């Protein structure tokens, strides 16, 4: 075990996978000489050279399309898109290219690429640099979407994503990069598609993603003071979703709060609610409560931004309401 920051855990995963497999290479804006605007790729260009760690022009559309075909022809590219807000530029490559070939070419191609990006609010980056566009990505059949919330998962899931033979969008969060946590030593792999139970409880289940997992854990502490036992489930794999973990938890607590930092309408939290309706309706004692961003742009000024973001207090309030 070693105490590591989330960004360092990602860096370790990249370094280990690049050392183990010469077909793994990285490209993205500012990732080489500078080491990435969030320092995730620090030192990797020095170690692996300019062919395998490439600083790119600002060309998200073509880079994403190139990751798709480079992956089809013998390499394992890891592309960094600096902000999730830029994902709309990558969408043709994901929606019309990556998602179709596995099926329309009858299983004859592999597409082992990882698109790393980071989203989320709370840093004063404004309306074009703060969004979580999880549902836009998880909507696309054929793409896996994962979002680790701890340094250990950041490392283990990135290694799993790089070894996966299908496209994986890997969602990080700008406010998680400095979070510290224990990371097991060695070649740890956290399989994609499995949720993690971070806290056991019996009264209400809190299902959360990415940084909202941290808020859900804080909410569980607050609820404990209210005399309520909350279970916290980290939905670190947005797609494929671990439906069993959701159903198992609700069968125990009979109350569900779903938390996601994206917009509400057609959002990832809406998908979670519908999934619960499909698979655990009979277990519910109250309607599912959704905690999300309101459907509006993210403002800049601190009190405006803080007021709109989902947080532990809002999760606590939603849990109390569903238990009434």
């Amino acid at each position, binding site marked *: 075990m070693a105490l590591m920051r989330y960004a360092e855990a990602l860096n370790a995963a990249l370094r280990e996978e690049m050392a183990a497999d010469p*077909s793994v290479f990285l490209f993205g804006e500012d990732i080489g000489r500078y080491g990435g605007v969030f320092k995730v790729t620090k030192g990797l260009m020095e170690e692996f050279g300019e062919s395998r760690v490439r600083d790119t022009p600002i060309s998200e559309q073509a880079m994403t399309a190139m990751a798709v*075909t480079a992956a089809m*022809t013998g*390499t394992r590219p890891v592309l960094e898109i600096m902000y999730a807000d830029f994902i709309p530029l990558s969408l043709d490559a994901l929606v*019309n290219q990556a998602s179709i070939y*596995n099926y329309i070419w*009858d299983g004859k191609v592999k597409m082992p690429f990882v698109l790393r990006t980071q989203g989320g609010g709370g840093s004063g980056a404004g309306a074009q640099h703060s969004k979580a566009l999880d549902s836009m990505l998880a909507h696309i059949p054929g793409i896996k979407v994962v979002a680790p919330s701890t340094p250990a998962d950041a490392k283990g899931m990135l290694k799993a994503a790089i070894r996966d033979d299908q496209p994986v969008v890997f969602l990080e969060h700008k406010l998680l990069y400095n979070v510290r946590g224990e990371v097991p030593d060695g070649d740890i792999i956290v399989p994609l598609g499995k949720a993690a139970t971070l806290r056991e409880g019996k009264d209400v289940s809190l299902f959360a993603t990415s940084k909202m997992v941290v808020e859900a854990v804080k909410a569980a502490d607050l609820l404990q003071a209210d005399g309520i036992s909350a279970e916290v489930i980290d939905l670190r794999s947005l797609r494929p979703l671990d439906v069993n973990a959701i159903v198992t938890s609700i069968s125990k607590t009979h109350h569900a709060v779903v938390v996601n930092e994206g917009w509400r309408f057609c959002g990832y939290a809406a998908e979670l609610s519908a999934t619960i309706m499909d698979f655990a309706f009979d277990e519910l004692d109250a309607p599912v409560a959704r905690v999300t961003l309101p459907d509006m742009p993210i403002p800049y000024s601190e009190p405006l931004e803080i007021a709109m973001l989902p947080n532990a207090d809002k999760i606590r309030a939603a849990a109390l309401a569903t238990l009434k």
Partner: protein
Amino acid sequence: MKNTPSVEEHLEIYRKMLMVRHLEEGLGALHKEGRTRGPIHRCDGQEAVGIAATAVLEAGDKVTTTHRGHAVYIGKGMELRPVIAEIFGRETGACAGRAGHMLVADVEKGVIGGNAIVGAGIPAATGMALSMQVMGQPNVAMCVFGDGAAQTGICHEAMNMAALWKLPVVFVLEHNQFGLTVPSDVQSSVKDISIRAAGYGMPSEIVDGNDAVAVYRAVGAMAERARRGEGPGMIECKTYRLEGFSTSDMGGYQTKEEIAAWKARDPLKISRDALTADVDEAKLVEVEAKAKADVDEAFATALSDPMPQFAIDEACNPYSEAH
């Protein structure tokens, strides 16, 4: 050296061009009988581009093409039957009827593949070239793209990166004068699109796209240069689409005079005339009869091939445990 095709190579190019012409005409006839499904984009009059450009490629090289890719599919070595069966949605199609005529691929043959998002084939080929460079492979990627595709934003991004990194990619511009119904001079700021190559620091050449030998020479030299690690280049092939944009084109924007002028310079005629210097008439007639017979037979077989059955395919489901 691949600079000039041998007589045998030219004859082979001629044979493939003929097959593609018969393929396109056969599709036109079946469309009239109501026996095709969805729009079909024929390349009559443009065969020299797709066939002669891919003739310079080697087995491990890759090619991407457009929604109008029949000549590229056949040029890069695909058989007629899986191509025709795919066009008719058959189980025996190259992609089991899932792709349709615009998105055909044969990964083993390096056709990766047709692409019907205009412009998307350009970064697709560039990405394959990136992969070749990272792995140190001696191969090249080729992108056959249209004059309409040349106007997309992604074209700029991809060509800049290709030239910046000296990627082994050859951009073959199939300038057939139209993007759908809109003439090139109404959508392009320049007449000769390849002058833009200079803006990326890449060499370019304009050739008569109806002259298979000219296409072969220019593309061959550019591919060799790319293979030597000297970076990408662009060949602009001036040609003309003799038929409609697709089988659903209602026409009205191509003049009779224009069509007649280009028909007089049909690529099949240009190649045949050139070949008569070295090949007996009897041999040419034999090759011509064989091409026609092969296409007829492939149509007959493909059209009687079985239709696929729909089922959720776990083997192609990236979320299944198998992956």
